[in-house]
């Protein structure tokens, strides 16, 4: 209970603080409405078109979760290969680093050309951005296993698969969750970025078209939803982390 309050209370305070500053900016300082809409007007637009916002949020959610899943499913096995073979690592490392150095915004148009305007290129975009932190953290996790632990495991004659499930994977989990938390927030950015560039649905598309129409109330509403989605997803991952690796150093405060 206290742990829960300890987690949510600071976030709540921050949100309330931002809301208050926002309210003050629009009322007391008198910033024009077309620059910063008042909280009421944003609330008004939200409550006027709940279905529209919900539908677009769902699209973005689908894309980013798809991208997140894809990134994890690709990064974890790749990390495993890298941790098994120094040679393999030397081959793939340059490719991975170069792929990371390329600006994603520059790759997006290419994805559109290749995969059209549906949700798939957005999923790819989300996956592309979420992939790197996931790969790095999973590799760190898999490599962090004590050589003597592997000796112990080998001395039992256990198969590689059994060693993976019983030792390698659980050992790597704490490091991996660091990557998962980064990856889920990166996936949000990726999906929105994809929607900016093309398409006719999703929160990114909403922002794009609201901006075109100078509808800052709509734009703010979309921004608020995006931040809420990010925060909720982040805490969802953290929740799973707490359940799954309750035994790790980083979790001890919460357990006791």
């Amino acid at each position: 209970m206290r742990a829960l309050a300890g987690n949510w209370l600071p976030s709540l305070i921050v949100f309330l603080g931002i809301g208050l500053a926002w309210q003050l900016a629009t009322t007391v300082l008198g910033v024009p409405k077309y620059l910063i809409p008042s909280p009421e007007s944003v609330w008004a637009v939200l409550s006027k078109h709940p279905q529209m916002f919900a539908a677009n949020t769902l699209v973005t959610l689908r894309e980013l979760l798809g991208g997140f899943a894809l990134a994890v499913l690709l990064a974890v096995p790749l990390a495993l290969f890298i941790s098994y073979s120094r040679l393999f690592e030397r081959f793939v490392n340059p490719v991975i680093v170069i792929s990371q150095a390329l600006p994603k915004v520059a790759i997006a148009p290419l994805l559109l050309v290749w995969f059209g305007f549906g949700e798939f290129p957005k999923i790819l975009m989300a996956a592309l951005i979420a992939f790197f932190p996931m790969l790095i953290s999973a590799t760190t996790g898999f490599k962090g296993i004590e050589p003597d632990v592997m000796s112990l495991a080998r001395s039992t004659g256990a198969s590689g698969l059994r060693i993976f499930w019983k030792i390698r994977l659980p050992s790597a989990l704490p490091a991996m969750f660091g990557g998962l938390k980064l990856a889920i927030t990166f996936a949000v950015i990726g999906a929105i970025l994809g929607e900016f560039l093309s398409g006719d649905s999703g929160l990114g598309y909403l922002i794009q078209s609201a901006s075109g129409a100078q509808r800052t109330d709509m734009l703010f509403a979309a921004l608020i939803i995006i931040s809420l989605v990010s925060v909720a997803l982040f805490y969802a991952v953290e929740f799973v982390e707490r359940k799954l690796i309750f035994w790790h150093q980083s979790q001890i405060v919460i357990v006791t």
Partner: protein
Amino acid sequence: MLMNAVQTAAGARDRIDPGNAIIIERVSKTFETRGGTVKAIDEVSLALRGGEFVSIVGPSGCGKSTLLGIVAGLTRPSAGSVTIGSTAVNGPYERAGIVFQKDLLMEWRTALDNVLLQIELRGLARKHYVSRALDLLAKVSLRDFANKYPRELSGGMRQRVAICRALIHDPPVLLMDEPFGALDALTRDEISVDLSKVCDETGKTVVFITHSIAEAVHLSDRIIVMSPRPATILADIAVDLPRPRRIEVRDTPEFGAIAQRVRASLTALQPRR
């Protein structure tokens, strides 16, 4: 109960079981490193009778761990061979229990589950070993900690769990690499008494690497003193103290005399600069 166990111990020890004799024959090991080749072991030959408890002492970095790895079949020798019982060791030797300096417990498993990891990795049926695991834990005074996680245990307790994990499948061979090296002196004494209790009963062949001469003399039938790298055998000292040996054996003159011999052969090889 305890007396009983100790009584059988003496009996088991007299038994010479050829099934778990270890023959190390002209084993050498050279590592290729960036800085050139490192000769870690130079033609070491050693024969351990089945059921014998043999300690290996020697300066740090002389090749003890490497030799143990070769016996366990985890490291391939550059030359020479290891035979355990009638089996030539050509890969991980599965009928051994291994204990390292670090306890290497899995933090996500309770003490009991850590002991049973050995069983699960071997693909054996867990349910057949639970009561044996609890017995082993009881023997090292950890019965009440079976359901605790490693982080709730002290260093000495954790290493006891690791020892139980090495014994749960009742291996005929026990290989230990400075198993008490990370523990404080008092805990070391306690745990070595526990170890002698567990080993005495079962007639296992034990290879025990240690830096503590007292520990070596207390536990062993024989002590092998190794030279600085590349490791060769400098002395092979029999410990003919009666068993069972309680901790008080360390205060006897016989014990002191043997410890003295070990220390002398160790100090004789201090590198002169």
